[in-house]
């Protein structure tokens, strides 16, 4: 436990030192912040896509949906270095020859990036504070939305950790993770909309964005809770197995 936390602390410090983490964080906040712009005149899509629509009640829902979508790219960029970089620079040798189990290494690294992600979420509270200055947002929706974001974030980061165990090239691991996440975030939505029974049902149940939408509406979605936790656990398990595999390959 203590060793796991040491690894987590080292990883978190690594993010604080790394310019990439700041750039990713800033872009994440920027992209989400666009949701506060008024819809452009030519906008023909749903009015629900923006937070501040004239003559309508402001809603936090578009913000959380945007944050979920942005995480599809942000999570892989944060996790890509976790193991890939250790393998490339050779520090993996010192790490794996220390008396630490593979599970401790994976969980430590996961907790480290999760810690940084939580800091990022705290950063998005700026939006909430901004809204509080001018209106009274629904705090129940905000609380559930953040719970949904924490769950979605941990699942997405676990996918990223797994992708990072696959290759020594950071960029490749990021691309793989974005690919896997796109399946859950984009592809499943498209599949469920264009297929018949039973595929649309299965795809709908694997769509991470649907679950996030439920949370963003202020609902506590127990199916979403199970889905995200299962995704987190499953990919962390696979990561441990990937790391272990180098001992019998």
């Amino acid at each position, binding site marked *: 436990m203590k060793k796991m936390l040491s690894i987590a602390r*080292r990883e978190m410090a690594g993010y604080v030192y790394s310019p990439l983490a700041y750039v990713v964080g800033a872009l994440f906040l920027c992209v989400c912040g666009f949701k506060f712009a008024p819809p452009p005149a030519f906008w023909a899509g749903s009015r629900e896509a923006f937070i501040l629509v004239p003559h309508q009640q402001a809603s936090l829902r578009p913000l959380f949906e945007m944050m979920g979508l942005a995480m599809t790219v942000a999570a892989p960029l944060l996790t890509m270095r976790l193991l890939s970089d250790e393998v490339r*620079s050779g520090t993996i040798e010192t790490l794996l*020859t220390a*008396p630490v189990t593979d599970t401790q290494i994976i969980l430590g690294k996961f907790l480290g990036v999760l810690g940084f992600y939580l800091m990022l979420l705290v950063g998005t509270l700026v939006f909430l504070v901004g809204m509080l200055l001018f209106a009274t947002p629904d705090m129940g929706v905000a609380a559930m939305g953040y719970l949904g974001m924490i769950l979605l974030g941990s699942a997405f980061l676990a996918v990223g950790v797994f992708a990072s165990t696959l290759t020594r090239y950071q960029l490749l691991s990021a691309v793989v993770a974005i690919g896997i996440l796109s399946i859950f975030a984009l592809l499943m939505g498209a599949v469920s909309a264009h297929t018949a029974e039973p595929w649309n049902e299965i795809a709908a149940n694997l769509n991470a964005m649907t679950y996030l939408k439920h949370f963003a509406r202020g609902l506590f979605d127990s199916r979403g809770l199970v889905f995200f936790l299962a995704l987190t656990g499953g990919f962390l398990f696979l990561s441990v197995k990937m790391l272990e595999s180098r001992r019998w390959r």
Partner: protein
Amino acid sequence: MDMIDVQHLTKWYGPVLAVDDISFRVRQGRVMGFLGPNGAGKSTTLKIITCFLPASAGTVTVNGLDVLSDSLAVRRQIGYMPESVPLYPEMRVREYLTFRASLRDIPARQRAVCRQCWLTAPEDMTRRRLGELSRGYKQRVGLAEVLLHNPPVLVLDEPTIGLDPAQIRAMRELVRELGREHTVILSSHILAEVEQTCDDIIIIAGGRLVADGTPAELRRRVVGPSRVLTEIHGAAPEAIAQAVRALPGVQNVQASPHNAWTRLDVQGAGETDPREGIFHLAKDQGWALRELRRATGSLEDFFVQITYEQSMRQDREAG
């Protein structure tokens, strides 16, 4: 007592055979030099001993513990400094040592970090980032890290590579000092270095063990027990060679003219020393003698020779 016991170790990287049936033992408190040309399988063997890689076949035990079934226990007993000393560039020296200490379960109060920091002296070095350190300081940080938990076994992969001559000398002295309390394995492709620091030497080439023994034993195998070089002036080369060959204990003499002088390579039998005989011979004959010394042939020739033979043998097998 055998601290490290390697039996019939074999390692395949896919279709490539990196280590081919190597067996050796390292006794407690010895410094063992692992010698071989680049790509001979030195690092691979060390990585298997330190539990980083699994063996394809064979067994390795460290202090009686198997590297596969008791991996964590073995890792606790070993301090391993990989080749090129990989470090996290963004961390500070003290931060890194503290991190490594916590991975080794060293309680904060007992941490030898501060005591070991003499290795990274001067003091302000502990606040530098690892990425900005020079090669020599990185090596010191690596060593300080390895010594944090005071392990009974130290495994150093090419500890002097990339250091300047003064640092190499300091590293050698340090290794010799460490050898008093610890069992040390170090790898190198530089013979002189291993000869000076190690109690035992193992030479591998092409993944096979080609020679082992103490430096003195190995040298005896190269140079022969007694070989003397001398230069004499005063008679024809053949006549001098003839006279020297007639001396008691001399087995073979090779003469080569060296301007007016004759250079002789004298091979004595067993442990005999023909130098005194040669001196008296020269005195009696009135010959001038300008050199008379025992050949201290370095292991270098031997090393080059056996690794060359090994590669020839492999070419034959492959061809």
